[in-house]
């Protein structure tokens, strides 16, 4: 027995075999491709199809960009150069970029003003979007609307300053009176603001040209600037209105609740274009005969109503998502409705609804192109109107629409990426 044992164990390994690399088909890029691209006959077909689609996209777009023509004056010269090699006429953008961005009536010497306003917009919005920035920057956010108005519309600096003074006076009045009750503070603030505006009105009348920039009328706004103006103004105005509507809809008072419900459902039930028709042809009938609001203001009113209804629904979702205990806890601390809403409910509800609000904002920004239908010259209106119907550039579709698409894509994609980042950041973990 021991014999056989001695014969069979002729060799005993004392060291471990070094781990061999996996077979070539099971590692690295090959393995990844096997698992992700060619894991079955169906997947293989899909991969090949995908590669073909990418190939045709690239082959379609590459010569268009690579053979693009810059620096000519009109489409005929451009066609002569391309000779049918599929090149684009980017010269149109080179020639007309000011019109595309600012509209064709904004004085060209003043382009720096909306540009500066645009750059400052980022500074103003930054502390709202990124909570780790110093809170003191919010002061600039408060100043920004008046500054932007002054930069874009021009006129004397006194008008935005007095407007701001009114708000500041209202704010301090509110702070003073708030400890009596919220309602007293609110009415006091409104009164203080009105009084300030009335008093400072005399100063404006006395010095109408103090530090004045050349005035630009609203009807001269156009191009992408108009989209930006409408988008930012309407979103920022509709936030407070939307919050009020959402609270109203949650309210226990039937009359207030039903006013809000009817308003929200009505606005959400009709397309924006009908509201723009209202702004264009109907709204003027509802104002006193002697007033004449310009079109851009009427459009701002209607778009603000539109977006506030959608924002109200988003915020209502946030309110509904708050646990019942939060409301009860606020009540049990003895807070009244205004305090509970301001200190407990709203901060949490808004936090939940930020992604939704951002979605509404992106959608609204895209929808500002609809104003071209009521013959305002925003970016789309500029392209369809003055540029495509000019003798120089009639027929240059792709370049212009690509330019417009890229502008909108950059802004909207940027905002939605921000919203996703914020969503990840705000996720507190317990789900």
């Amino acid at each position, binding site marked *: 027995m021991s014999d056989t044992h001695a014969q069979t164990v002729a060799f005993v390994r004392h060291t471990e075999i070094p781990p061999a690399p996996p077979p070539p088909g099971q590692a690295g890029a090959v393995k990844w491709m096997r*698992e*992700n*691209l060619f*894991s079955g006959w169906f*997947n293989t077909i*899909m*991969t090949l199809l*995908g*590669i073909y*689609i*990418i190939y045709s996209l690239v082959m379609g777009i590459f010569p268009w960009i690579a053979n693009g023509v810059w620096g000519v004056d009109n489409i005929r010269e451009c066609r002569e150069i391309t000779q049918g090699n599929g090149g684009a006429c980017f010269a149109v953008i080179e020639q007309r970029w000011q019109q595309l961005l600012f509209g064709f009536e904004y004085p060209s010497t003043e382009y720096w003003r909306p540009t500066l306003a645009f750059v400052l917009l980022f500074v103003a919005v930054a502390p709202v979007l990124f909570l780790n920035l110093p809170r003191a920057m919010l002061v600039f956010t408060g100043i920004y609307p008046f500054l932007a108005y002054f930069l874009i519309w021009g006129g004397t600096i006194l008008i935005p300053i007095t407007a701001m003074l009114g708000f500041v006076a209202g704010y301090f009045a509110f702070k003073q009176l708030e400890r009596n009750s919220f309602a007293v503070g609110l009415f006091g603030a409104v009164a203080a603001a009105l009084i300030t505006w009335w008093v400072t009105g005399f100063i404006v009348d006395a010095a109408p040209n103090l530090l004045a920039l050349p005035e630009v009328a609203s009807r001269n706004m156009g191009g992408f600037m108009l989209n930006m103006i409408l988008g930012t103004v309407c979103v920022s105005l509709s936030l407070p209105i939307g919050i009020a509507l959402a609270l109203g809809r949650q309210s*226990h*008072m*039937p*009359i*207030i609740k039903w*006013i809000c419900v009817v308003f929200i*459902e*009505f606005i*959400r*039930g*009709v*397309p*924006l*274009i*009908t509201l723009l*028709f*209202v702004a264009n*042809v*109907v709204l*003027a*009938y*509802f*104002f*006193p*005969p002697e007033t004449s609001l310009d079109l851009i203001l009427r459009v701002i009113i209607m778009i603000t109503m539109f977006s506030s209804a959608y924002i109200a629904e988003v915020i209502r979702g946030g309110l509904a998502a708050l646990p019942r205990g939060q409301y009860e806890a606020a009540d049990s601390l003895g807070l009244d409705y205004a305090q509970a809403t301001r200190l407990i409910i709203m901060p949490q509800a808004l936090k939940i609804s930020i992604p939704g609000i951002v979605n509404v904002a*992106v959608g609204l920004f*895209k*929808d500002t*192109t*609809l104003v*071209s*239908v009521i013959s305002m010259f925003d970016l*789309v209106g500029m392209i*369809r109107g003055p540029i495509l119907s000019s003798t120089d550039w009639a027929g240059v*579709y792709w370049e212009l*629409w690509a330019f*417009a*698409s890229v502008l*909108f*894509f950059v802004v*909207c*994609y940027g905002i*939605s990426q921000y919203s996703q980042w914020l969503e990840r950041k705000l996720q507190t973990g317990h789900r």
Partner: protein
Amino acid sequence: MTIATDPPKESFRLSMLINDTRYRSYTFQAIALLALIVIFSILGNNLAQNLAAAGLNISYEFLGDPAGYDINQQPIPYDSQSTHMRASIVGALNTLIVAFLACVTATIFGVIAGVLRLSNNWIISKLMSLYVEAFRNVPVLIWIIIIFTVTANVFPQPREFRGDNPTASMVGEAVAFTNRGVYVPKPVFESGGWLVVGVFLASIAGIFLWRRYARNVLFDTGRVVPVFLPSLAIFFVPALVAYFVLGRPIGLEYPELRGFNFQGGLTIRGSLIALWFALAIYTGAFIAENVRAGILAISKGQTEAAAALGLRSGRIMNLVILPQALRVIIPPLISQYLNITKNSSLAIAVGYMDLTGTLGGITLNQTGRAIESVLLLMLFYLTFSLAISALMNVYNNSIKLKER
């Protein structure tokens, strides 16, 4: 010993309207109502003054006047002598047509893109992300105009189909893509044709009945009744039998090149195609996100639990994943359908004669009845939206998780 007694009954004092939370809400509501009445009366007063100054009045009589304009797509008979009312109805039908077509197509695009975006195939999922992001982040109006430009400039002109050596040809001798629109064969119903359609519809109902029967048998006796092949048979056989027994009562009328244009067949105009596909592709990108979210919302444990019960993968999808995912997908899907309907009002940008183009466009401009036209326009969309929302609420309640 203390005896709990009711607090003395307070009599109502006027100051309680402000200080007592039980009564304060009445004050607020009264103020709100008053403010509302004041606002409306001011607006109404302004309206009356402005109308009087312009020499106008509110009247809907213009709806009975002859419209005097042509509509290029007429689902019901219409000519320029028809009334504005009829023009509006034609427009409303056109709205519904494009909305329906776009909803169906958008659902197909969206479901495919949403499912493929979750695919393990890296290239495909990236392509689908590209599609979703590219279309979601560019205004739908720009897409409508781009696709309209494509149909008007890239497709050949009808005259290129002519001659011995045409530069363009019809697809399968039946469909012609031209810059004036797409010409497709049109079904022609002879006597008995509708009977075939009726049989076909009845057989679809039959499929549902068969499925219910199979389910009942399964639940009662545990015997599995085949569903797929009988359904297929019910789908095809009765309609085909009826078709041949009745002597082929449904024919196809092919478009034909006559003179400078195609005659016969069904014309799908470029504006309809632009609107249809732009809405479908744009909304499809949103639906893709909804579908993806719906599928991701079902936790992996559900799949694993179903697999542990011994279900096959097809049944896991049908019996476990889909019913739960649909509960998440359907509500946003319906609101996307509503968005399509509302966005179809952009038809006016490419000259598709929907309700906004007829009532809100030409009729408004011709008659100058701005208030009435816009009001009717809003009323139509509002009624439609509210009706769909009501249906959606009924559906939501029926699929809501039944909890205690």
